[in-house]
């Protein structure tokens, strides 16, 4: 895959949104359909929010790096941070069969990413958390 763009972001949720707009435009330029572009936005938003909420519990300055790659068929997003070890894939899946008043809401974001992406991987390497998601550009 060819690296299309690297984003280095701070701890602001608004920065995720701006990066999401740019990623959407880059994927559309590669011929991605609406649903895969949507899935990329969801993945960025959910994984980025997890980093901001869970990987930097202390005072350390928060950063995350997002790399967007693609070839003719697929795209990949890699989200990396230098915070505490945190594997979002270990979050328990939400119980979608429960009635509304008994629903727990934890784990929903990661569940959405798993459902919308073809592959989701977590690695702890070089003192960093790396989550990589991959999907087809077209159905």
């Amino acid at each position: 895959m060819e690296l299309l763009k690297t984003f280095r972001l701070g701890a602001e949720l608004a920065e995720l949104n701006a990066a999401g707009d740019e990623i959407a435009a880059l994927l559309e330029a590669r011929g991605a359909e609406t649903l895969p572009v949507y899935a990329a936005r969801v993945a960025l938003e959910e994984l980025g929010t997890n980093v901001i909420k869970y990987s930097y519990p202390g005072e350390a300055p928060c950063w995350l790096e997002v790399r967007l790659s693609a070839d003719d068929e697929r795209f990949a997003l890699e989200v990396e941070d230098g915070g505490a070890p945190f594997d979002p894939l270990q979050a328990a899946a939400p119980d979608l069969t429960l009635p509304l008043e008994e629903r727990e809401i934890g784990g929903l974001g990661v569940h959405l990413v798993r459902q919308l992406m073809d592959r989701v991987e977590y690695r702890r390497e070089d003192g960093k958390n790396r989550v990589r998601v991959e999907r087809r550009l077209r159905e």
Partner: protein
Amino acid sequence: MTIQEHRDGESLVLSIEGKLDNVASDEFRELALKRISEGVSLLVVDFAQTTFVASMGIRALFIPAKELKSRGGRVVLAALNREVRTLFLVSGVLDLFPVYNSSAEALRG
């Protein structure tokens, strides 16, 4: 995101224009809870102009829905595009809320 409100007695349509992302979700939830406390018993959430929903947006639907249910009212969804419908399908939202093609249809019940 901007939210358009159309109130008709105890019915309220909240139309979400733009992104119901992790920033905008709090604003939506607080507005919905405020209107429920003012006596709204049917809350229609209209997604015709919504470009994006994240998991916090889904949570922001659950909380007013629980509140309205305890008061004998309900939250219904209207005008889902394909992407929002897919997200709601895989998150189980479609099992929990009635869905209508338009807010006008939702108000007719």
